[in-house]
C-alpha cells in the first residue's frame, strides 16, 4: 500500500495563477507606474522652473513681502517677510474657524431642537431654514453677506449701536477693547483657580453620590465659582481692567476693536451655512435614541429635565459627535472661500505671496500641509472619541 506523501502541501497550480504571485506582480507594477509618473512630474517641474527662472525651496519665505494685509492678529507691516504673511494667514484662518465653530454649534443645536418641536410653526421655520441654507452655495451666501447685507448698513457716522458698546456699520463690527492694567494677572489667576476647583468638586461630588446617594448642586456651584473668583481677583487687584468703548467720530469709529467687514461676512455666512447641516445632525442624533429609553427613564421616576440631561443627550452625543467633528473640519476648509472677498486667510494671503513670488509649488504645498494637519488632528480626535464612546457590550 503506497502512502501518498506531502498530503498537506498545496495543490500544484500554474505559477501565474498563484494568488500570491499575482498580488506581488500587481503591486510591483503599481509601484513602477506611480514611480514613473512621479519621476516624470519631477523632471518636468524642474525643467519648467528652470525655464521660468524660479528658484525652488522655501528660502523665499525670508524675503520682504512688500504688501499690506487688511486684518492681522500679530504685528505685520509691509516690510515683514513672506513667512510672516503666511503666518498671519494661518492665524486668521484659525480665528474665523474657531469663532465660526462656536457660533455654528449654538445655532445648529437650536435649529436641530426646533425641528423636533411639537410646535408646528417652530418646526416649520427650522425646516425652511435648513432647506434654504444648505441648498444655496456657500460662496453665494458669503457674497450676499458681504456685498448686500453689510454694504447696506449705515456709514460709521450713523452706525447702528447695541447699547453704545457694539457698533455695526459698513466698515464692519466694532466692539469694546480690553485694557489690561497693573495686577490684571489676578483675574486670570482667579479664573484658573475656579477651573481647578470645579474639576475637584465634580470628582468629589461623583464619589460622594456613588457612596451615599446624596447629590450636590454641581452646576450652580461651578457657575458661582467661575464668576466669583475672577471678580474677587478683580477687586483685590483694585479694578485693573478697563474697557475702551468705541466712540462715533465724524468719519470713523474711534477706539475699540474693529472687526473688518470681510471677517464679519465670512463669519456670518460660515456659521449660518454650517448650522443647517449641524441642525440635521442634531435632529438625527436625538431621533436615534430609542423611545424606550425615555419611557424607562420616566418609569424610574426621572422628570423630563433629568431624562433629557442624563439619558437622552449622552446617548445622542454618541451619534452626533463624529459627524459634528467632520462639519467643524468642513467649516475650517470652507473658510478658504475668504479669498473671494479678500479676508486675508491662509489661502488669500498665500495667494498674494504666490502671485508676487511665483513660488507656486511651495505655496500650494504649505496650503495642503496646513489643511491636512487640521484634518489629521480631527480624525485623530474622532478615533479617540469613537474608542472612548464605543458601546461596551458583553
Amino acid at each position, binding site marked *: 500500500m503506497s502512502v501518498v506523501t506531502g498530503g498537506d502541501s498545496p495543490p500544484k497550480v500554474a505559477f*501565474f*495563477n498563484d494568488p500570491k504571485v499575482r*498580488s506581488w506582480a*500587481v*503591486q510591483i507594477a*503599481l*509601484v513602477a507606474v*506611480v514611480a514613473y509618473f512621479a519621476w516624470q*512630474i519631477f523632471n*518636468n*517641474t524642474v*525643467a*519648467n*522652473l528652470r*525655464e521660468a527662472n524660479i528658484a525652488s525651496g522655501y528660502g523665499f519665505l525670508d524675503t520682504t513681502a512688500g504688501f499690506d494685509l487688511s486684518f492681522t492678529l500679530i504685528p505685520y507691516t509691509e516690510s515683514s517677510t513672506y513667512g510672516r504673511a503666511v503666518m498671519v494667514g494661518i492665524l486668521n484662518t484659525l480665528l474665523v474657524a474657531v469663532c465660526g465653530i462656536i457660533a455654528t454649534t449654538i445655532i445648529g443645536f437650536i435649529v436641530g431642537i426646533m425641528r423636533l418641536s*411639537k*410646535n*408646528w*410653526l*417652530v418646526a416649520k*421655520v427650522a425646516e425652511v431654514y435648513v*432647506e*434654504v441654507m444648505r*441648498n*444655496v*452655495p*456657500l*460662496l*453665494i*451666501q458669503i*457674497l*450676499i453677506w458681504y*456685498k*448686500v447685507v453689510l*454694504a447696506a448698513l449705515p456709514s460709521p457716522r450713523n452706525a447702528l449701536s447695541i447699547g453704545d458698546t457694539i457698533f455695526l456699520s459698513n466698515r464692519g463690527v466694532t466692539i469694546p477693547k480690553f485694557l489690561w492694567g497693573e495686577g490684571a494677572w489676578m483675574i486670570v489667576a482667579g479664573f484658573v483657580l475656579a477651573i481647578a476647583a470645579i474639576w475637584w468638586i465634580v470628582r468629589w461630588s461623583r464619589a460622594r453620590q456613588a457612596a451615599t446617594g446624596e447629590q450636590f448642586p454641581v452646576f450652580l456651584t461651578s457657575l458661582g465659582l467661575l464668576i466669583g473668583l475672577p471678580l474677587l481677583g478683580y477687586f483685590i487687584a483694585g479694578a485693573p481692567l478697563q474697557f475702551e468703548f468705541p466712540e462715533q467720530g465724524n468719519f470713523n469709529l474711534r477706539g475699540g476693536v474693529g472687526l473688518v467687514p470681510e471677517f464679519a461676512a465670512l463669519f456670518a455666512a460660515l456659521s449660518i451655512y454650517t448650522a443647517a447641516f449641524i441642525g440635521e445632525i442634531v435632529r438625527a442624533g436625538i431621533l436615534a435614541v430609542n423611545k424606550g429609553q425615555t419611557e424607562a427613564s420616566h418609569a424610574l421616576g426621572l422628570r423630563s429635565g433629568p431624562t433629557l440631561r442624563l439619558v437622552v443627550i449622552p446617548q445622542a452625543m454618541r451619534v452626533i459627535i463624529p459627524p459634528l467633528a467632520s462639519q467643524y473640519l468642513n467649516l475650517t*476648509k*470652507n473658510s*478658504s*472661500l475668504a*479669498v*473671494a472677498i479678500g479676508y486675508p486667510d491662509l*489661502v488669500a494671503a498665500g*495667494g498674494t505671496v*504666490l502671485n508676487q513670488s511665483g513660488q*507656486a*509649488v511651495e505655496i*500650494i504645498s504649505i*496650503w*495642503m500641509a496646513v*489643511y*491636512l494637519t*487640521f*484634518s*489629521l488632528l480631527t480624525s485623530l480626535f474622532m478615533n479617540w472619541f469613537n474608542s472612548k464612546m464605543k458601546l461596551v457590550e458583553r
Partner: protein
Amino acid sequence: MSDLHAETSVAFVRTQEVPASPPPANITGLQGWMRENLFPTPLQSVLTVVMGGIAAYIVWLVLDWAVIHAVFVGESGEACRGEGRQEGACWAMAGARFGQWIYGFYPIAERWRVNIVFIVGVLALVPMLIPSLPYKTANAIFLLAIYPIMALILLTGGHFDITGSTWFTTYLFVAAVVLPLLFLGFVAKIIDSKLALFASLGIAGVAALLLEILSIDFGLTYVETSQWGGLLVTLVIAVTGIVASLPLGVLLALGRRSQMPVVKLFSVAFIELWRGVPLITVLFMASVMLPLFLPPGTNFDKLLRALVGVALFSSAYMAEVVRGGLQAIPKGQTEAAQALGLTFWQNMGLITLPQALKLVIPGIVNTFIGLFKDTTLVSIIGLYDLLLIIQTANTDANWAAPQTHSTGLFAAAALFWIFCFGMSRYSMFMERKLDTGHKR
C-alpha cells in the same frame, strides 16, 4: 349572588341607541389643530407669536424687495435708478442678461448647438431617473458613451486638428493595454485567447473611430472654451466631474478595501489627500501647478485644467460613498461567489458592485449636489461660470444701478436652490424606493 341580581330593580333602561355627540369644537378642525400645534401651553403660545412675527417680517421683506418694489421692465439701468425705483430688485436687468447667464459669451448665432445639447441631455436623463421605465442599459450607454462625444463636438465645433503625433500617443496608450492582453491570451494563456483578440481589436477600433469622428468637419464654427460661460459651464463642470469621478471612485474604493498593502496604501493616501484639503486649493493647484507638471511647452485649456482638478477631488469623495455601499454588502455574497468559482472581477462586476452601487444612489446624488454647489468656486480662478457671469453685470455701465448686485446674487441663489432642492428631493425619493428591498 344571583339573588342579589334578581333583587336589583332596574329603574330605567334605554331602548334606543343615543347618537354619539360630536367632539368639542376646540379639539377638531382648524381651531383644534391650532390649539394642539400652535397654542398648547402659554409658553408655546408666546413662542408661536414671536416666531410667527419674525417669519412674517422676513416673508414681507422678501415680497417687498422681489415683487412690490421690483422693476420688471426697462431698457437700461436708468429704469432701476432714482427715487422709488431703487428699493426693489431690478428684474429688468435679469431679463436683459438672461441669455448671457445661460450661454455666457457663446456666439448668439451658435446658441442652438447648446440648446440641442441641453435638450438631448434632458431627454436622455429623465427616462434614466424614472425607475419604472425600461431600456436602462441602452439609455446608460447612450448617456455615458455617445452623448459626451456628441456634446463635445456640438459645443466646440468638432473638426479637431488631429496630427500624426496625436495618433502616435493614442496608439502608444492602446498598445500599453492591448499588448499585455494579447500576451496573457496567447503566450501565458491565462485568459481566453479569442476574448483577448476581440478585446484588443475592440479597443484599437474604438480609439481609431473616436479620433476619426473628432476630426470630421461637420461645418460647425469653432467655439473656444473661453467663450463658454454661465449655466453651460456650471453644468459641464458638474456633470463631467461626477461622470469622471464614478469609475475612478469605484477603483479607489476597491483599492482601499484591497488586501494588497501597496494598493491599499496608495488608495488611502490619494483619498485622504483630496478629502483633507479645500477645493479652492485643488483648483489653484490645477490651474497653476498642473502646467508645471507637464513637459515644457505643453499648454492646455483652462476649463480642462479645472475639470481635471474637480474630477480628482470628487473621485475621492465618490470613493468614500462607494466604500460605504461595499461595506453594506454581506460577506456571504462574496463567499458564495467564490464558492461558485467566480474570479475577483467577475464577483465585483456581477455580484457585489451592482448591489453596492444600487444602495449608494442617494449618496451619489448627494455628492453631485455638493459638487454642483462647489462649481461656483471656479469663478475664483476666473472661469465664467453662472456666478461670475451674473456678477459681470456689476461692471456693466449700461446696467449700473443700486440693486444690480443684490438682484444678481439673489437670482443666482434662487437658481442654484431650485437645482439643488430638486435633486435632494429626488435623492430622498430614491432612498425610500430602494429601502424597501432591505427591510424585513
